[in-house]
């Protein structure tokens, strides 16, 4: 049993909280039932402030926490950069990763809002932030607003949190786009350097951290790094939220230990249910179902297959669909979601999307695949943000994994028997310039 103490050494009032074993860590004990302030405090106790800037960062480093927004960057390094920067710092909790196939941030905000808000407060203390923001998509903030009101009434928080809605765009949650939006401008990326950790919102050093990452920090602050490492792998400790699209069309958010075999998350990955698995979302990588069935949920294992976990999207494409049709739909979406600022992305992504649309239709020309490959090579590394590179990763893996289907299409055939779209795209794709704000 762990007794939480405040920095003064005084035991916290009426809260002796056992460090929880096993799963779930982030999600409620009763699946899907949101935790209000009272339930949250009963389960986890009050947030253990450390009493000064920088003090929590060592625990985060010892825990080995990495960012859960997609980049898997070591969290303590980002915290340390902002904590060491001159002047007032800003913290932004990012719940607008904007991956249409990811549901985990919206779910976390709904069922564990107080854990996220604890994470904001504790991390703000750790970096010396004097301003806190929460950036989220419309329709995902109800529980958070209620939770903020509860905390306000209880006088629980040290720092007020400003909630801002993101525009419904794929790149809205990109770090520099987010800072532009909070600064009153359009949510489009800017060229780095400078990084937002050095010069972000209003010129202040800014920490942008995914809401799940902050929730993990709230747990590390309570139970310590050793507890955090009880689950996960040595190189990638802890749990992560995944959004799993099962071949039968069901979507689940699953909190899983890092290192879990993918076949335990995806029904039918090894059998006949799926033909291929998309790992890491729309900037992610297609893997043949057979390969996916041998892999585990960690970047070390996935790296050998050219894949990364990203924000934890795993989509198992059922055998009755056309992988090329799916890839073409998503690529068209990604091309439309280019901010249009960089020439290679503005021109290259639509060209690639056009080639994929041709490959998805009967009788593509032989040169089309080569064109797609060539354009993919041309746009790589030439954007201000990672959008062209992420799109290319998705496209290239599709061309490889669905190569047989391309040959079939060239002969005028298609293996699919079900034309219904599988991967989720937002309704009514935005097409106008004004949708950026």
């Amino acid at each position, binding site marked *: 049993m762990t007794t939480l103490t405040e920095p003064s050494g005084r035991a916290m009032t009426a809260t002796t909280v056992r460090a929880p074993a096993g799963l779930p860590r982030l999600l409620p004990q009763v699946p899907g039932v949101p935790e209000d302030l009272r339930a949250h405090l009963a389960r986890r106790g009050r947030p253990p402030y450390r009493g000064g800037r920088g003090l929590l960062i060592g625990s985060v480093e010892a825990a080995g926490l990495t960012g859960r927004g997609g980049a898997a960057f070591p969290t303590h390094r980002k915290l340390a950069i902002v904590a060491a920067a001159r002047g007032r710092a800003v913290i932004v909790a990012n719940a607008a990763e904007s991956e249409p196939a990811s549901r985990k941030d919206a779910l976390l905000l709904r069922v564990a809002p107080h854990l996220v808000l604890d994470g904001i407060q504790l991390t703000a203390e750790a970096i010396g932030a004097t301003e806190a923001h929460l950036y989220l998509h419309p329709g995902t903030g109800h529980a958070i607003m209620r939770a903020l009101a509860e905390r306000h009434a209880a006088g629980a928080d040290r720092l007020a949190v400003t909630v801002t809605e993101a525009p419904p765009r794929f790149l809205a949650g990109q770090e520099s786009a987010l800072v532009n939006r909070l600064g009153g401008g359009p949510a489009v990326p800017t*060229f780095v350097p400078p990084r937002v950790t050095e010069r972000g919102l209003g010129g202040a050093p800014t920490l942008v951290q995914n809401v799940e990452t902050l929730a993990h920090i709230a747990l590390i602050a309570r139970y310590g790094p050793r507890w955090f490492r009880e689950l996960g792998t040595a190189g990638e400790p802890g749990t992560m939220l995944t959004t799993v699209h099962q071949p039968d069309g069901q979507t689940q958010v699953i909190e899983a230990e890092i290192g879990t075999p993918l076949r335990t998350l995806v029904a039918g990955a090894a059998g006949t249910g799926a033909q291929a698995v998309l790992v890491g979302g729309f900037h992610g990588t297609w893997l043949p179902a057979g390969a996916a069935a041998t892999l585990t949920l960690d970047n070390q294992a996935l790296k050998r297959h050219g894949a990364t976990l990203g924000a934890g999207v795993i989509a198992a494409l059922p055998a009755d669909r056309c992988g090329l049709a799916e890839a073409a739909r998503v690529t068209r979406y990604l091309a439309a979601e280019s901010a249009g600022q960089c020439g290679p992305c503005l021109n290259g992504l639509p060209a690639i999307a056009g080639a994929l649309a041709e490959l998805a239709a009967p009788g593509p020309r032989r040169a089309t695949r080569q064109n797609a490959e060539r354009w993919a090579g041309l746009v790589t590394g030439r954007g201000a943000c990672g959008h062209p590179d992420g799109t290319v990763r998705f496209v290239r893996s599709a061309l490889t994994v669905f190569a047989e289907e391309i040959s079939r299409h060239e002969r005028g055939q298609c293996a699919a028997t079900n034309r219904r779209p599988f991967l989720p795209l937002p309704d009514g794709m935005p097409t106008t310039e004004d949708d950026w704000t």
Partner: protein
Amino acid sequence: MAETLRVNPINCSGHGVCAELLPELISLDEWGYPIIDQRPVPPGLDPEVRRTVAACPTLALRLLRS
């Protein structure tokens, strides 16, 4: 000290002046945007490189010391 050329792709509007002035290190893609040799600038090309950076109409081309 090694120097490399880098383009700010947001500022670049594809005038193509750079590829004309410095074909040794810069070519254009099929949409007219520069593809830049990422290797350190050879010392012998120093005057040409500086002239090219100065000539970019949108100030998108930069010389970075590394």
